């Protein structure tokens, strides 16, 4: 739980960072990532808002790599005009993208209560 020295502003920043993270994964890609980076710049290490800003950046960078790089490699090696390429790419992209959204969603909920992603993290 958030301790008394961590003020409401931190909690607000943490929530905003987690929100920007999930928006980048869903409705507002890129723009939300810039917002997330700006929030990160305002935070101080070892605070909960810093933790959530870093977590959001990590989630989104990993998601970008895992989604676009792997899908790109699938298209590159499978061939753009092969139906099987699209079988793999669409199934893979949908399920992995959703997994990242669910993780970001849990991060958002945890940021609201001033907690880290997991109790022991």
């Amino acid at each position, binding site marked *: 739980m958030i301790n008394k020295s961590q003020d409401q502003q931190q909690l607000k920043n943490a929530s905003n960072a987690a929100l920007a993270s999930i928006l980048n994964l869903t409705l507002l890609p890129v723009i939300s990532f810039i917002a997330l980076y700006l929030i990160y710049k305002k935070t101080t290490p070892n605070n909960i808002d810093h933790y959530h800003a870093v977590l959001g950046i990590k989630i989104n960078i990993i998601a970008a790599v895992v989604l676009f790089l792997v899908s790109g490699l699938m298209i590159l090696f499978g061939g753009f005009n092969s*139906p099987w390429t*699209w*079988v*793999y790419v*669409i199934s893979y992209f949908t399920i992995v993208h*959703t997994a990242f959204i669910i993780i970001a*969603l849990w991060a958002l909920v945890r940021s609201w209560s001033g*907690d880290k992603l997991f109790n022991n993290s």
Partner: protein
Amino acid sequence: MKYESQGIAKMYFIAAIGLFVGQILFGVTLGLQYVMGDFLFPALPFNVARMVHTNLLIVWLLFGFMGSAYYLVPEESERELFAPWLAKLMFWVFLAAGVLTILGYLLVPYSTLAEMTMNHLLPTMGREFLEQPTITKIGIVIVVLAFLFNIGMTILTGKKTVITLVLMTGLIGLAVFFLFAFYVPDNLVLDKYFWWFVIHLWVEGVWELIMASLLAYVLIKVTGVDREVIEKWLYIIIAMALISGILGTGHHFFWIGTPDYWQWIGSIFSALEPIPFFMMTLFAFNVVNKRRRDHPNKVAVLWALGTAVMAFLGAGVWGFLHTLAPVNYYTHGTQITAAHGHMAFYGAYVMVVLTMISYSMPIMRGKKAANESAQILEMWSFWLMTVSMVFITLFLTGAGVLQVYLQRYSENPLPFMVVQEKLEIFYWLREAAGLIFLIGLILYCYSFFVKGKEVGVVEAIAS
């Protein structure tokens, strides 16, 4: 159990589980018929098995909803059920109607069933999911009206809560929209148009209200989070469900002969349809994160969280996948629809009924929660059924993408049956996943009979 009449839910839940087993048995049979076309033919033709599979789903979910309402409403209204005898009577009427209808499908040709039940007097048979003889449909209306009267009077003469208000709104909607099953215009476009008033406005409209209220009820009970907090969430969720879902019906009107504007309306509003499911996940995660107690019924909490996540996945994400008109132009009526249908029904409605059963059944059997061994077994069944459903969906999605490409997108489109042969590997994999689902379901049923160490009382979490 606070009120004796809540116990009526038990018979509804037992019937629901029994019919669920039947539905899955027909499901795995159908899965095999996809790859072995003459399996059980002519005793059980594919079209009949499919009709039984889908009709059993609808009937057992209705049993589940009614059982849930009979359990939930007395407790929320703080009084006994208005007429317990009516609930018991309607149970037997509904069960008899359901079983006779299924036997009718299985034992006589559909056209003979239509003749036997005098369909010509008020023709309503022959439409997908609404294949029931007219007399059965009238029976459903009578049962649902009696049910609504019973639940409605209990609510009106007792305490009113947001949960019962939302539940009642959903149940009234269920009854009202079913009436369109009796309207069968000669014009095929109008026929399809109003058919969707039942199908779509049920599953992407009023059933979402029922689902949200049941989920909210269980979450209040297992987390101890303030009712006010949950009720605010509930209002926002159902508002979004109706805002997006009602005009979202338009995504079924893209290619049936209706005006072009439906492509815009349907695309825009159905693109919003994942929002209520997204909010339900956020809501469930939030209240579990802020829980004030560790309820001994851990498996009910697991089902509740699972419902929110899987509904978002199946109804939200997989719905969005093929809901925009330019995409749907290629995908409608393919295995992508089947993929969405399977996961959405399981995630949203099967799981919410199982959540209610998981929470209430131990209480109706005189315990706070099932014993430790039974809960562990039920958790196994949760994971087996849920993971296998994810795989069923993925295999059907793979089949659907390949089907769209070969049959509708490529420069030299192949005929339907030629493409079906090429999808065989996906159908075999889907069948394997279906069998694992069946194993999960058997474990689920068995978990009710397992003996073990009783679990402790509700533990408060220090804030």
